[in-house]
């Protein structure tokens, strides 16, 4: 009853203010651009992507943005929200203070196409260089057996949704455009680790790891791990073991071969 009595007493301006939100959104392309402000109505449970969609539907029909699943599963909607690299579909509006103006900009490391959309083709090009999965022969009965504890750690890497947020924050390419030629970036290290630690794989990626992927540029700042929406331990579980392998196996082909034949790492335990 009390709630009903209170409602009309609340000043209408305050009601309006508390039910709306103001976004500063980057609008523009490679040649020019600026932040533009949009104020839209806010409903319970909304995420940043919902607000962007509402801006599109009501005020800026041509606002460019990528998204697919709206559930943190496809990795399309990466952006910088108040300067922090995030998935727009997994960033709830109630994590911000009421009345705060929220800034949404495109991820910085890749060339801008338009508004919130960037050219991430770098990642797809680098993926082509990775020597493919090459399985060893199946068991004599034609089946393939792997134990859950051996696949667990590779499954962690397979969770990657290719949002490229890790690529976006890695200072090696964020701050040094030139390094893109010699450095594949954390996403690709995760991919390489997945292949290298796959219990059935026999392919040889030592040359790539040592030279072209640029593993040596990484100085383990862990920024990539911090932003990964899938909570993959990129540095501890992928990059560091790969670095160790490069050191031992590049100069010790026997160690490399032994691991490929048994599907197990001689030096390290199965679970990191």
């Amino acid at each position, binding site marked *: 009853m009390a709630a009903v009595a209170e409602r009309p007493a609340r000043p209408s301006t305050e009601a309006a203010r508390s039910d709306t939100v103001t976004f500063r959104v980057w609008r523009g392309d490679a040649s020019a651009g600026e932040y533009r402000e949009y104020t839209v109505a806010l409903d319970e449970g909304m995420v940043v992507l919902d607000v962007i969609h509402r801006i599109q539907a009501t005020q800026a029909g041509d606002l460019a943005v990528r998204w697919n699943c709206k559930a943190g599963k*496809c990795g399309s909607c990466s952006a910088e929200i108040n300067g922090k690299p995030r998935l727009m579909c997994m960033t709830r509006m109630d994590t911000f203070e009421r009345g705060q103006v929220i800034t949404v900009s495109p991820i910085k490391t890749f060339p801008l196409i338009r508004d919130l959309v960037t050219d991430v083709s770098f990642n797809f090009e680098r*993926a082509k260089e990775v020597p493919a999965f090459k399985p060893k022969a199946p068991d004599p009965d034609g089946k393939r057996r792997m*134990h859950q504890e051996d696949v667990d750690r590779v499954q962690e890497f*397979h969770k990657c949704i290719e949002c490229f947020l890790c690529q976006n924050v890695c200072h090696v390419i964020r701050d040094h455009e030139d390094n893109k030629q010699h450095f594949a970036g954390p996403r690709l290290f995760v991919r390489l680790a997945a292949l290298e630690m796959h219990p059935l794989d026999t392919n040889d990626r030592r040359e790539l790891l040592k030279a072209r992927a640029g593993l040596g540029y990484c100085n383990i700042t862990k920024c990539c791990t911090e932003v990964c929406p899938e909570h993959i331990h990129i540095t501890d579980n992928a990059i560091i073991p790969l670095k160790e392998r490069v050191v031992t196996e590049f100069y010790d082909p026997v160690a490399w071969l032994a691991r490929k034949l048994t599907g197990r790492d001689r030096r390290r335990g199965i679970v990191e």
Partner: protein
Amino acid sequence: MASESHETHEYDVVIIGAGGAGLRAAIEASAAGVKTALICKSLLGKAHTVMAEGGIAAALGNVWPEDNWKVHFRDTMRGGKMLNNWRMAQIHAQESPDRVLELEEWGALFDRTKDGLILQRDFGGHRYARLAHVGDRTGLEMIRTLQQHAVHKGIDVFMECNIQRLLKDGHKIAGAFGYWRESGGFVLFKAKAIVLATGGIGRSWKVTSNSWECTGDGIALALNAGAELIDMEMVQFHPTGMIWPPSVRGLLVTEGVRGDGGTLRNNSGERFMFRYIPEFFKAETADNETEADAWYTDKANNRRTPDLLPRDEVARAINAEAKAGRGSPHGGVFLDIASRRPADYIMKRLPSMYHQFMELAGVDITKEAMEIGPTCHYAMGGVRVDADTTATDVPGLFAAGEVAAGLHGANRLGGNSLSDLVVFGRRAGQYAAAYAKALRAQPLVDAGEVEQVARELLVPLTSHGGDNAYAIHAQLQECMQNNVGLIRVENEMIEALDVIASLKRRLPNVTVAGGRHYNPGWHLALDLQNMLAVSEACTRAALARKESRGGHTRDDFPSTDERFAMVNVVVRARDGELTLSDEPLPEMPDELKALFEEAH
């Protein structure tokens, strides 16, 4: 006019769509040695397939050695209320184990049994635990495996490229025309054969589990090219979508929750599904809680829990409970795994469901029940294809995956889509390549037609009508949700046709801000034509089927009717108008019929 210029590419086989079906088709076509292009609206690896959760159905027999293709075939047909194309169901059941093992051969890492084989999980309508899976992110594993395999085959990939029209030389396929999303520039693909693998239609409904891409483009492309559609009335409403908060309404909650022990309850805590067991499934469904719970571990001596009845049955039951006032606060019911399984088991088996509820709804599914309700999920209907070759009736045009129809009949079983994608994706690639090789000359594209299409595509950018594409979309979604949803009735569907017609008339007045450069407003204005075509076909077919069966429930014709038991509703476009007819299903051979007479 410079703005209507276009770039041109020439291929043997062009595959439209890079979900599971398109990727598998591309791998096969390219392996056959033909020049292959793969086109998709989003970036590679983002197609709807990436969202699939629960698993891929295949009678591997790793968990239940009693399982084999015949049992899978029978389950698929019964789940589809016998409206399925029997031959597709047979091929699917026979070939899916090989396709799953092939994914493993290409690097996929499914969860394992104790002996190190691929683990399989229970799902609705499947007699045995049959779904190979990776936690609850099976689609991601599948699409990444196929994507990486395809990348190494040297297939040309055209990302963020949207095909708007198929072109023909006489009656044969000759090419496809569309635009780059980034530049807005036009692109022509000359092709000997085309595979449609464009996925679903869910964006025409308001509450849906589908992504923005699911606008039914392939269905509209096929219809315009003169191909036939079947079963368009058969739309699957998945029983368990999120319903709260409003912004996540429709997001899928995998059936794996029930497969792994979750149960549906109403607001008094009752496991109400026991009251909704239909006659058709009585013999194989547990009628009490003790037997239902024992079934998870002992399938030989117990019958399946009614929580895992086929989706159409469960969705209707949830709807009925909520209508009767026994629902949850936001109009659904409760899905409870928290009280039934330990927290660490839930976290291991359903990590992304945990994540999804925790982050988007603030609900800890290891502690509380989820609130769920039906969501528009899957199109059983679509392009009519030949069972063995996936060929449509337009020479050179093939279709596979969700865009094609026949396999699932009136209702799809969970897990049968991912297997459909790889079984028929492979066949589409194979037969499209064979067709292209057999064709002597490259068919000719009519330059005048290309010019004409290009001009039409630019209309929204130059029109001054002032109408808003987003508003039209919202009205269409509202209309389909209310009038052609889970429960249908004639007068509402007639009203829907009126709305669709009026929205169609408004399309030429849509005005889009901005230019051709990455402009979602323009893209939506074009997508709307497809959504409206699909909505009309669906509504017309739903009016024509005057009975209830599977995904199609009529309030005014609540039971099945023998007259419709053996026919597909076929939709064709003739001179811009849709025509409908009932046509007999292909007749099942006696040895397969016998499978339905044996005791299960």
